[in-house]
């Protein structure tokens, strides 16, 4: 079972690796590159959303932070791309610590609100600051080599996937996250420090987003607050993860491919109805919650983990025959 999963992951990686050898079509290459990016974003979102049970409605802010950091360091600081990219990841992680400290001590509702507000604040910040180019955005030095970006994305997303796979499915960390998702108080009694662990998960979720943002900026060569800091990155990541299956790695990856493929067709053939896409995204996620709480992956594998019937016995009541009133 486990071996066959690893085999499938390997086959998928190899298939993605040879695609550029089979086609010279730049549009196709571009589509697959971006699909891989969304896999990375959705899977990273799920570290906190699915495994830990804290919904980050500001995922896009960390993606945008990485994009802007890379752009600013390359353009204003003349840093080499690799270094600027790394800095973008570090900054996204640092931002998660700052944003997580007050909010991850509280119930999930606060966190959801705070991250959503954070995304708007970061967008506003990029609009008013000088060195980000304000509403005009920034241009990066064009490096027009689709193959380079394809393989870079392939390598990064593979690393992200493998690292998360090891951390979440094979090491203690993933189990701790799930324990906290299920019951924070109970987890404390077992020696887990929820706030620390949640912040670690938040960082683990946002660093990949920041790095992918940096790659995106250099690849597309133009960023502005509307494109990299708009709502769409968050909206799509959330929908992909929920639709695919929360709390798994394969689920969000499958969700990402399906949703992104749908979006590509939709925007290609119905480009004048782009806003309709929002309706579809919203409907898909709302319906998923009601009818597919375990996502597509739950449907495919039939694994309803939290499903098993509640105990048929009554709650913690002492049956009368066992109660002895007085000593």
């Amino acid at each position, binding site marked *: 079972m486990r071996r066959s999963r690893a085999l499938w992951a390997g086959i998928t990686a190899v298939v993605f690796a040879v695609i550029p050898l089979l086609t010279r079509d730049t549009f196709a290459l571009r589509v697959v590159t971006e699909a891989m990016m969304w896999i990375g974003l959705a899977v990273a979102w799920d570290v906190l959303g699915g495994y830990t*049970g804290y*919904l980050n*409605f500001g995922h896009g802010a960390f993606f945008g932070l990485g994009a802007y950091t890379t752009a600013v360091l390359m353009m204003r600081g003349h840093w080499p791309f690799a270094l600027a990219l790394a800095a973008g990841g570090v900054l996204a992680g640092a931002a998660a610590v700052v944003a997580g*400290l*007050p*909010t991850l*001590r*509280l*119930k*999930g*509702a*606060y966190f*959801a*609100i*705070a991250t*959503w*507000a*954070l995304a*708007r*604040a970061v967008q*506003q*910040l990029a*609009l*008013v600051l000088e060195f980000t180019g304000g509403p005009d955005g920034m241009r990066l030095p064009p490096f027009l080599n689709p193959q380079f970006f394809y393989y870079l994305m392939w390598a990064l997303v593979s690393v992200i996937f493998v690292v998360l796979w090891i951390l979440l499915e094979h090491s203690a960390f993933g189990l701790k996250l799930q324990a906290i*998702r*299920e019951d924070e108080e109970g987890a404390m009694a077992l020696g887990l420090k929820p706030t620390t662990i949640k912040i670690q998960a938040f960082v683990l979720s946002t660093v990949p987003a920041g790095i992918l943002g940096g790659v995106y900026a250099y690849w597309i060569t133009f960023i502005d607050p509307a494109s990299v800091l708009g*709502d769409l990155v968050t*909206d799509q990541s*959330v*929908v992909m993860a*929920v639709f695919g299956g929360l709390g798994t790695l394969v689920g969000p990856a499958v969700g990402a491919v399906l949703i992104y493929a749908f979006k590509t067709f939709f925007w290609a053939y119905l480009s004048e*109805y782009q*806003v*309709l*896409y*929002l*309706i*579809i*995204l*919203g*409907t*898909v*996620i*709302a*319906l*998923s*919650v*009601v009818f597919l*709480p*375990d996502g597509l992956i739950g449907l495919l594998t039939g694994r*309803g983990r*939290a*499903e098993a019937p509640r105990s048929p016995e009554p709650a913690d009541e002492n049956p009368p025959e066992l109660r002895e009133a007085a000593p």
Partner: protein
Amino acid sequence: MLWQLLPQAVLDGLLIGGVYITVALGFSLAFGVKHIIDFAVGEWIMLGAFLGYYLQGWTGLDPLLLLPVVFAVFTAVGYAIQPVIHRAVSGRRGNPVLMGLVFTFGLMLAIRGAGLTVFGFFSHSIPSVMSARSWFLEAGGLFVTVPAIRLVGFVYAIGITAVLHWVLRHTDFGLAVRALAQNRDAAGLMGINARRISSWVYGIHVGVSAMTGVVIGSIFSISAQMGGDYTILAFFVVVLAGMGYLAGVPWAAFLLGLVQSLFLVYGNPSYTLLAVFAILYLILLVSPRGLFAKGV
């Protein structure tokens, strides 16, 4: 020179703060009773505003006269949606609050998309007869202008707050709502139909928010993209007040109105949102239960 602008800034802030009460009131009620964070709150405001806009176009009536119609329509909409939300949060998934959040988030996206599709990207306003009027006051060398429509908005907000307060305190329905907010199981034992009450609560939240949209449309402008801004305002007010703590809402709303109008006069308005966010952050850091909530 600058301090002479202060009375006007404070007045504007209080008047607008009044409207923010109603932006956040329904939202806070829904959270207090059902523990649902309604990400769609701003979208209900947007939809209500557009219903007002089109109704005015068809009937030619003053938008303020249309408020009851908008309220009735959207209370019905909210009432009808609540069972779906209930289904989302009572599924077999471990964390119902989580699923509720995702659901209303999806609702927000769908409504925003629908709004942009149907209403387009243009801004409109819903002028009332009061929109053009204003009073000019002078005292001790200080001048203030009181735009009539803002005063109407303020009175509307205070009125709605008072009515809601009265309903919650002095009716059987209000007692049931409060019982439900305190303890679901006990409320069930008392023979309260939790589902019906929840539907009414969500209905009232949606109705009040939609109605507020019309008032906002007669003061400012409306557009299909407006929802997000008001959702943020509602979040801010509710976190400042203490989540689900209704009595804190007015004070938090006034504070927000003041911050905004002071920034408008003395600062750079494009930093308003950032300032609001900074305040939100500090509150969460220092006093996570809000500034106005007492005890737990």
